[in-house]
């Protein structure tokens, strides 16, 4: 990356470890996150593959029950807190938020770098608990199992999650303040790209929900280490209190794990259909509605926990309400395609796959919100399938769409389009093969977190395990062709997709302070129907004469 085209870009500003590890440039911090999160994604993924291989047969023959329990606990902890929560916000969000609103950097560049160090510090705790022998509480840390009975490294893992919470809050505060104070002249709230709206909504949830998780984790560690009994029924405590606190955080956290993905798709679909996003205001407002309603539905994780039936009814009602903004979004995305000029580059393929997977995951959410059905499928593979459709089929697919869409901006290079399309398709097929059978398993009554299972469930488990292998290949492929493009890829044009966002108006890769001249905004977002843009085709590669 030392060639002349890179000089003058943020990538050309020094290349030693010092220049990267002490940077306050949001674009470089985004890369620090990208590299660390990729490592965690494959660590968590490897655990998932091991579990799926174990589950190919009904007997517990590959790993022992204790090992299996540690695998799913660590898979959950790593994937939720060390990949999904920071995934899009800390990488793409970090890189793009200032670019999209025409700012030179985030409001607090040093806080941004500090958040990465806090993340790494917290992840050391988590990695220590992996190496030292694991945790066997499940990612939910339910008491009193986690406080009185579990024998893994619960305190270390909980401390890791607790510390990473600080990093989440730092990112959230930084984003909120940036959006409020650093928008370019003319960039009113209703001209913001939806990706910025969703990052804003996500940040609100991060700032207000994470401390409640912190509180419950503090209480768990105090209970384990110091022996106070807040969740221990023998000391007058109440184990359900923990579930209330935990889900008060973790349900909003589910929206941390999907809203940014919705934002990415709202950027990609209009660009590759050459159409403005259908119903812009409804999509923007539904993101805020999801963030707010998300705080009111935690009790739907506890329909069979022994909480009052009437609380269950209220939470079920609110859960159906929170489904509406998501439904609105799906309709709007679909209608965006109408009368467009649609082409199917890799980011668009991922975005279309997102649309399908998110729809089928969301519809399964209706089953779970319907009380009487939830009583049957709660804590079964139906739930596993549902949230993997949303978090992996939704969020990870959107993440891949975003990485491919903005790759030329991140690196100044293009990847192999053919390889990209193949990887997207393999992922889609592998995903459905892995997780669709789990819906059937759940309805048939196979409980989650089972190391062994009755033989009649084997057929669907074998399908699911086979799918996991395909899915793993689909996720490994980009590692190679994107890695290759970093060094050998063709030079990308400044605006390879002829997209409208401000981030495309600067060079690829952008200069250290983002813009040579500070932009002024005169148009709404996604003005693909404006004169001159609607029929422009892509010219992804930098023209040699210009280079």
């Amino acid at each position, binding site marked *: 990356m030392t060639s002349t085209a890179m000089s003058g870009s943020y990538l050309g500003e020094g290349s030693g470890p010092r220049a990267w590890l002490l940077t306050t440039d949001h674009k470089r911090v985004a890369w620090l996150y990208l590299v660390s999160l990729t490592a965690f994604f494959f660590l968590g993924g490897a655990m998932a593959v091991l579990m799926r291989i174990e589950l190919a047969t009904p007997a517990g023959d590959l790993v022992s029950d204790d090992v299996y329990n540690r695998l799913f606990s660590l898979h959950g902890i790593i994937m939720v807190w060390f990949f999904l929560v920071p995934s899009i916000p800390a990488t793409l969000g970090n890189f793009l938020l*200032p670019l999209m609103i025409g*700012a*030179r*950097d*985030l*409001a*607090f*560049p*040093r806080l941004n770098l500090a958040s990465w160090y806090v993340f790494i510090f917290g992840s050391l705790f988590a990695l220590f608990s992996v190496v030292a022998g694991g945790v066997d509480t499940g990612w939910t840390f339910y008491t009193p199992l986690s406080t009185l009975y579990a024998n893994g490294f619960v305190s270390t893992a909980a401390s890791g999650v607790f510390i990473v919470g600080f990093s989440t*809050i730092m990112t*959230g*505060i*930084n984003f*909120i*303040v*940036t959006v*409020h*104070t*650093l928008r370019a002249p003319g960039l009113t709230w209703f001209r913001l790209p939806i990706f910025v709206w969703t990052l804003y909504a996500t940040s609100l949830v991060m*700032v*207000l*929900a*994470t*401390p*409640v998780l*912190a*509180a*419950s984790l*503090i*209480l768990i560690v*105090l209970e384990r*280490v*110091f*022996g*106070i*009994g*807040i969740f221990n029924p023998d*000391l*007058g*405590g*109440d184990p359900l*209190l923990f579930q209330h*606190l935990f889900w*008060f955080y973790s349900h909003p956290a589910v929206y941390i794990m999907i809203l940014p993905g919705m934002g990415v798709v709202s950027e990609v679909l209009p660009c590759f259909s050459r159409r403005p996003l259908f119903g812009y205001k409804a999509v923007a407002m539904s993101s805020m509605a999801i963030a707010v309603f998300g705080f009111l539905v935690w009790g739907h994780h506890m329909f069979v926990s022994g909480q009052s039936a009437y609380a269950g009814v209220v939470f079920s009602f609110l859960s159906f309400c929170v489904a509406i903004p998501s439904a609105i979004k799906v309709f709007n995305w679909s209608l965006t395609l109408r009368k467009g000029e649609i082409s199917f580059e890799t980011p668009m393929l991922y975005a279309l796959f997102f649309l399908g997977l998110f729809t089928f995951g969301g519809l399964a959410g209706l089953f779970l919100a319907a009380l009487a059905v939830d009583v049957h499928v709660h804590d079964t593979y139906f739930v596993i399938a549902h949230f993997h459709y949303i978090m992996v089929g939704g969020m990870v697919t959107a993440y891949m769409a975003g990485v491919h869409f903005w790759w030329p901006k991140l690196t100044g290079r293009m990847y192999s389009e053919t390889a990209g399309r193949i990887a997207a398709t393999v992922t889609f097929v592998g995903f459905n093969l892995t997780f669709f059978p789990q819906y059937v398993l759940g309805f048939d009554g196979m409980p989650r977190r089972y190391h062994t299972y009755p033989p009649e469930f084997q057929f669907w488990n074998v399908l699911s395990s086979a799918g996991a292998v395909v899915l793993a290949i689909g996720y490994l492929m980009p590692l190679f062709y994107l890695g290759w493009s970093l060094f050998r890829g063709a030079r990308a044009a400044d605006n390879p997709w002829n997209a409208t966002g401000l981030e495309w108006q600067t060079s690829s890769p952008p200069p250290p*302070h983002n813009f040579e001249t500070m932009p002024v905004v005169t148009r709404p977002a996604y003005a693909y129907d404006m004169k001159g843009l609607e029929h422009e085709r892509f010219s992804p590669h930098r023209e040699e004469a210009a280079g």
Partner: protein
Amino acid sequence: MSGTESIAFDTPKRERRADSFAMWVFIGSEAMLFGAIFLVFLVAHLDFGPAFAAASKHLSLPLGTFNTAVLITSSFTMALAHMLARHRRWRATVWALMTTSALGACFLIVKGIEYSKEISEGLAPLLGLPFRYTGPDPVHAEFFFGLYFAMTSLHALHLIGGIVVIAGMIALWPTASPAGRLRRVAAVGLYWHFIDIIWVFMFPVFYLINR
């Protein structure tokens, strides 16, 4: 860039606004943290009111009251520091800040005395120390003391954080620009008042529930 600390801002004024806005957002976040634990306390109090009331009598009301007064005074000196900084009276500002952190330290010392008293009386259900309690319903009194130690030590940690930040601010004082000084005093001031308010909630909850 014209006197701003972050390259993102054009003018110090915008940066100062962003700073105090960020501090408000952070305080919102902290309020959720303390709010959650207060909620736990209130739920427990509904269940075991009499045991909690009896246990509360074992705390030292004079020391608690004294500490409340100390913290309120420190908030006053912090407000004074902010006012002086706005008038660019830097020396006086530093003195006000030092008084504030000294009062904070005084609070911590008194709290430490209280803790050691409670530990020597066997009221601390921590680290496997024996819990010796003579009142009725020791099981739930122990629960009360668990919450008491959890919440007050969380508050003390925040106070220590505040003192460290003020110390750092004074250490960096000579190199900071006037705009930077004012910005920091304003933001740290907000945080300090917030910690103070948390204590103002904790004091009646722990010390006054049955008096």
